[in-house]
């Protein structure tokens, strides 16, 4: 190792995982420099102005998965994190009836027959999530390893599952590879409820309700919840960018340095070891350890280069499924939209357009062939309702995630952006008459735009599909699943690693622990 290096650690990218990782590394007594390509920290957790006076969380727009313990450990409150709203309700919109609030009371009100089944399934899934939750907080163990701690971790997981008892264990093993379509059909009669619950299993994935493994993604989200996350989403004051600012202040307070407008061109390699980075400006900075918050494809194929890697590894990285299927919609509105049947307060929650399982499956069908659906599925929020600073007085911001919008649209995105935008607005307008007339500005970010803005290959918000084949000890790929990479001195800390994305920060913390344990 180079004792005369400028820093102990360089972290490439000031996304939330990079900032969390830098913070924990700095706390372990290391000198840390974070290099961010953009002008502001946060990666895909940023707040920016998309129309004069209108600000929005440009990527992720809600905070749910970051463990409360992490928020406390990093003293994010003291560093400026406040919440405009917490415990946001989720509401399933419908054109055929009243909206349904996704909680026991809401379900009782709209579909009494489903209420007991909901309580039972919820309780069971929570038990499963508790059993699996411990896996999320730690470095994933390797299979076939001799390392005692990793064998213990595998044993612990086995024990947690065994401890569920015969009936639950059998059910967990039965449903883990199933599709959420069948699970919903088994338990519920209300199409509205089925669609809305399935939506959460599918959000941010390349899955439709009938895709095998879609129950796994649902369990996965719940497991994150069991791992200290919130049971319902919250909205940071000032948008997700405020969370990133707080993370940055906390990291600086721990001793880390952060430079923005400092895009990295290459990871430098000396004697088969990561030795630092070269910036786009030509500046060279040395470090004993380089940690990349960038996605695996950008890290390995872009910043490092396949010449430093073996063909088989490069093949695995290039086969990583990383095409995003979610778009982001931002609307500037001159007045508050009114969603039919929704009381005033509920407008501040998460509004889902996912009226049935078949609706979702049809929306998904198109994406398989490089098309977008005429009837997309949406998660809508009106952040300015909870946080007035995001829009001029009386005006409002609508922020929505749109499924399913393919990364590689047949025919390209050039001519297709406006027709898709119109179509999405029509879909929302159907639920909120008068919306179109209130729009003063609109922005639609396709996965291709998200790729460019957030520098993630494919524009996938998990930096790679979260699925059984890209999970735990094989995430992102075998040979790099322990935050280590084949190149000594180079580590990963982003959403492409276990346990994935969704403004969780756990990957960053796990990576810091791994580096502290290995690099002494």
């Amino acid at each position, binding site marked *: 190792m180079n004792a005369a290096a400028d820093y102990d650690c360089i972290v490439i990218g000031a996304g939330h995982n990079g900032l969390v990782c830098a913070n924990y590394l700095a706390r372990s007594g290391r000198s840390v420099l974070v290099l961010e390509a953009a002008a502001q920290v946060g990666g895909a957790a940023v707040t920016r102005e998309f129309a004069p006076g209108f600000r929005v969380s440009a990527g992720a727009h809600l905070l749910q998965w970051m463990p409360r313990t992490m928020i406390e450990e990093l003293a994010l409150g003291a560093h400026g994190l406040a919440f405009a709203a917490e415990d946001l309700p989720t509401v399933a919109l419908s054109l055929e009836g009243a909206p349904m609030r996704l909680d026991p009371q809401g379900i009782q009100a709209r579909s009494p027959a489903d209420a007991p089944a909901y309580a039972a399934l919820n309780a069971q899934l929570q038990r499963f999530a508790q059993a699996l939750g411990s896996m999320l907080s730690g470095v994933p163990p390797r299979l076939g390893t001799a390392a005692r701690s990793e064998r213990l971790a595998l044993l612990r997981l086995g024990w947690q599952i065994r401890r569920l008892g015969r009936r639950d264990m059998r059910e967990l093993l039965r449903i883990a590879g199933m599709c959420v379509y069948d699970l919903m059909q088994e338990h519920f009669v209300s199409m509205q409820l089925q669609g809305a619950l399935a939506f959460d299993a599918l959000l941010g994935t390349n899955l439709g309700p009938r895709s095998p493994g879609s129950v796994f993604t649902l369990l996965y989200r719940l497991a994150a919840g069991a791992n200290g996350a919130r049971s319902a989403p919250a909205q940071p004051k000032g948008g997700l960018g405020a969370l990133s600012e707080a993370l940055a202040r906390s990291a600086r307070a721990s001793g880390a340095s952060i430079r923005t407008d400092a895009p990295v061109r290459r990871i430098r*390699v000396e004697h*088969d070891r990561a030795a630092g980075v070269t910036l786009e400006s030509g500046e060279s900075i040395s470090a004993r350890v380089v940690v990349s918050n960038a996605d695996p494809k950008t890290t390995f*194929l872009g910043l490092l*280069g*396949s*010449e*430093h*890697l*073996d*063909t*088989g*590894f*490069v*093949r695995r990285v*290039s086969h990583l499924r990383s095409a995003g299927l979610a778009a982001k919609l931002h609307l500037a509105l001159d007045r508050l939209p009114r969603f039919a049947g929704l009381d005033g307060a509920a407008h501040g929650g998460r509004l889902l357009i996912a009226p049935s399982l078949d609706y979702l499956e049809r929306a998904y069908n198109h994406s398989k062939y490089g098309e977008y659906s005429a009837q997309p599925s949406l998660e809508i929020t009106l952040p300015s309702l909870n946080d007035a600073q995001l829009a001029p007085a009386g005006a409002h911001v609508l922020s929505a995630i749109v499924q399913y919008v393919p990364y590689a649209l047949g025919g390209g995105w050039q001519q297709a952006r406006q027709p898709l935008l119109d179509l999405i607005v029509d879909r929302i307008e159907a639920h909120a008459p008068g919306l179109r007339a209130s729009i003063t500005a609109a922005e639609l970010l396709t996965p291709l735009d998200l790729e460019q803005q957030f520098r993630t290959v494919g524009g996938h918000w998990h930096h790679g599909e979260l699925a059984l084949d890209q999970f735990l000890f094989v995430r992102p790929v075998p*040979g790099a699943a322990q935050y280590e990479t*084949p190149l000594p001195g180079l580590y990963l800390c982003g959403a492409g690693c276990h346990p994935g994305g969704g403004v969780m920060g756990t990957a960053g913390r796990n990576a810091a622990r791994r580096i502290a344990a290995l690099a002494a």
Partner: protein
Amino acid sequence: MGSATDAPPIYLEPLLRTPFHERARALSQLDSFIPWNGYTSVDVFSSVEHEYFAVRNASTLYDLTPMAKYRIRGVDALRFLNRLVTRDLSKLKPNRVAYAVWCNDSGHLIDDGTVFRLGESEYRLCAQERQLDWLLDSALGFEVELIDETEHWAALALQGPTCCAVLEAVGLSGIERLKPFEIGYFKLQAADITVSRTGFTGDLGYELWMAPSDALGVWDLLMAAGRSRGIRPLGSRALNMVRIEAGFILPNVEFVSAERTLRVGRDRSPFELGLDWLVDFDKGHFNGRRALLAERRAGPARRLVGLDIEGNKPAHNALVYAARSGRRQVGAVTSATWSPTCKRNIALALLDAPHIDVGREVWVEIYLNSELVWERRMCRAQIVERPFFAPQRRRATPPADY
């Protein structure tokens, strides 16, 4: 049912024929063909012994066309190749050839072959087996163009002590100045041929590369000019004898490509195959480097060695033991032959450490069939240096005029 065309299913389609097939068929007394890379290839023309002695005492023509051939060009051609193979190709000058092996991530052999540097950023890789899939994946991140030109070139190996004289006789003036592993460009009547002083026999020899349309004409000229120098066509069986004498390894005989092994531990590293000299840890990163460094630190678990076995019965498929008792197996023979030139019973064997050092004694279990009566012999064998046969004439420039 029934399809529009009555084309036979692919497994019934005849194998490809090389441009020399017509001549090979005419000269083949036994009609003994074997498949190679999708082509038919002659196993024995008339007699293994005659063909063997022609390599060592006269000249032979062997049809190399089925060899997989890839053109590699572009600004990153050298970087690409140096990351692909284990040896340092930056030292390979234009118009030179280098033997090389390439490994997967875990440092196990995928195949071996020869790299021809045809120009500043222009190479050809020749291998016994098809490699396009591995090459294309290895090209990710490199600016190179890869062309499978297996069918674009007809190739002949002209090998044996009189072969330089044969080439001189057909008018390849200056051929005698071509050094081992050098490439030269010649005119043979109207045909442009590229000649490399390379081969698989461990003897004086050349490989001739030409357009398929020139193939028969070149064959005829060489056969006519070689008549007074004992030229014969060579089949794979006799070639196998001479390559064992020369100590060369063969895929699927000495090793199974790491991309094809199914069982754990059945793939082989360059160290295990005794190819340490091909591994250059100082040239920068290459496929398998980190795994090979770790293997070198740990020391070899097994190694391919040469065996000199008592008696004269070839030790085909023989198991090798530490002692005559035959209680502890330490490896197995991969290739064996009686060497008529060396007058030794030789073999290549993969043995476990520590039974790998030159001078050590092991025991080889040979099954012998004498007039349909089988008997088992435990033969003493000594680990010896390879190659078993390496005549001065293979390197002499100019070669002696036989």
